[in-house]
């Protein structure tokens, strides 16, 4: 508490889900200019000293205290679970109810800005996709992949909030595959020594560096910015090019074989790859980020080479 009273003048930002690799990256950047308060149900370690942490599940009542104690200027909502192994109902409940709770608090306590990190995956890979999907494209990600449905529901919920509370600036960010020193699916895939690919398919892929997504969040905090924004990094390249650059030795397999293997491995709990995610290495799912670049002033700083250099490094041990 002493920290905040001492620095007083700064705006206060709440980051939910601060304990993850990505939450930490956001916190480390934002705490230089904002007073950051973190909420996470996990134990949070290795944070800058001036960040206050509330270790609590966002669905609990105690979260309200954070909002009641002082005026919050913005909420960065990252507390969204992406774990295909968690039970579906718990996964759904945590994401939807948690988001609803946070948004309810924001409305009640007049927080002027809410930023939600959705994903370009909500559009879903599909052979009939436009090469670059705009923010208006239908969210079709759930047609084959159930686990993405709560993210879509969440994204839609935020959209309705946007209309119900015009006084609050809601920003929904839909970044392409985030890659870097994090533990998400695309980064883990690129870290495989012999990544399986689908024989005969080589889609164009967009990658974005973790730090560039943090930059996008920083830009989104600027007063006046509101709406849905696709975020993408450098220009797209084929998957084979990425694997080549990384010096990987891909294992091309016919699609039915790969599906069968993955299904078996999933059932035996030998792999954590949900089978429908194979579509991401088969079809395009790329976004048109021109709106973010023109309206939000977003610019990426990490080119493909930089992104691939960082994906090689394991996430930091903490």
């Amino acid at each position, binding site marked *: 508490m002493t920290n905040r009273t001492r620095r007083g003048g700064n705006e206060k930002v709440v980051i939910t889900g601060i304990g993850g690799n990505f939450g930490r990256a956001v916190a480390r950047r934002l705490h230089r200019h904002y007073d950051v308060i973190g909420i996470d149900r996990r134990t949070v370690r290795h944070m800058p000293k001036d960040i206050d942490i509330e270790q609590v599940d966002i669905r609990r009542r105690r979260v309200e205290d954070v909002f009641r104690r002082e005026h919050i200027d913005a909420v960065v909502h990252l507390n969204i679970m992406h774990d295909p192994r968690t039970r579906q109902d718990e996964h759904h409940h945590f994401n939807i109810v948690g988001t609803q709770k946070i948004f309810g608090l924001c409305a009640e306590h007049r927080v002027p800005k809410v930023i939600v990190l959705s994903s370009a995956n909500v559009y879903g890979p599909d*052979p*009939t*996709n*436009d*090469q*670059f999907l*705009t923010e208006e494209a239908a969210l079709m990600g759930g047609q084959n992949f159930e686990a993405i449905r709560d993210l879509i529901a969440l994204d839609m919920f935020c959209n309705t909030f946007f209309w119900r509370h015009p006084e609050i600036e809601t920003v929904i960010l839909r970044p392409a595959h985030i890659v870097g020193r994090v533990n998400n699916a695309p980064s883990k895939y690129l870290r495989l020594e012999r990544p399986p690919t*689908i*024989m*005969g*398919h*080589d*889609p*164009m892929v967009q990658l974005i560096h973790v730090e560039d997504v943090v930059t996008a969040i920083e830009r989104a905090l600027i007063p006046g910015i509101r709406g849905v924004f696709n975020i993408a990094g450098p*220009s*797209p*390249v*084929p998957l084979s*090019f990425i694997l080549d650059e990384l010096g990987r030795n891909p294992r091309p397999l*016919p*699609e039915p074989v790969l599906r069968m293997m993955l299904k078996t491995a999933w059932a035996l709990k030998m792999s954590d790859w949900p089978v429908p995610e194979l579509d991401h290495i*088969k*079809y*395009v799912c*790329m976004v048109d980020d021109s709106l973010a670049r023109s309206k939000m002033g977003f610019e990426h700083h990490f080119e*493909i080479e930089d992104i691939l250099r960082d994906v090689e490094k394991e996430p930091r041990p903490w």
Partner: protein
Amino acid sequence: MLKSVSRRVDDALIKTIREDVWERVQSMDAGQNEYGFDPFGFHAESLKYVLAVAVLLYRHYFRVETFDIDNIPDRGRVMLVSNHTGQIPLDGMMTATGVLIDKQPPRMARGMIERWVPSIPFISTIFARCGQVVGTRDNARMLLKRDGCLMVFPEGTRGINKTYDRAYELERFGRGFMRLALETDTPIVPVGVVGAEEQMPAIYNVESLAKILGMPAFPITPTWPFLGPAGALPLPVKYRIYFGEPMKFDGDPDDEDRVIGAQVKQVRQAIREMLTRGLEEREGVFF
């Protein structure tokens, strides 16, 4: 070992294409990024595999002759609007090859492919690397906005699948291309392909069978299906490809069908004139 083999193959391919032509194709600017790929997956370096085959067909099998190919502007967005004939879309392949190897500087004519093509292994990748784009409206718009060269067949399957009794008749043209041209302020170069109609003269179209097989048409030709797979080979006809003067249209892209239709008619008329000229000029189907 493997490397030297692949290098020798590459050399042979480039020799087929001809070094100077390949040099021009390779250094062509079709909107590639610093890694050599354009956003749709086009890669000039990968082009040689398909181009070598296309060049053999172009120079020796169909002995393609192009007329007024310099009517295509050297740079800037442009739409090639062509008639569509011959059961298999080799006319598109030959036009694109012509624009690549006979025009200086070369341009990459980008075709629009069916939406289910990306789900076929290998074909999807080959088509993408050769600059073919999934046929959605937004993709076409984006290609033109990036100053690309778009190849359109407004007759669609209506044109390519017609039987031989209607040879060189133009079917109804779609209007989408004109709306797109108006919206993006794109000049239209009409293209007339003469010769392709005779490569597979269809006597009858078994529509019921086509429906069962999920194909747009099932043509019966003098050789197919009676001679088996060999009967599906196109005859070695001579292609003549005519390129017309660029046409520029003004107007509201959301205008009524009647207004757009009149403009489409002008393009159709230009193509018809070129076809008439081509049919008069040629001395035979195979020469």
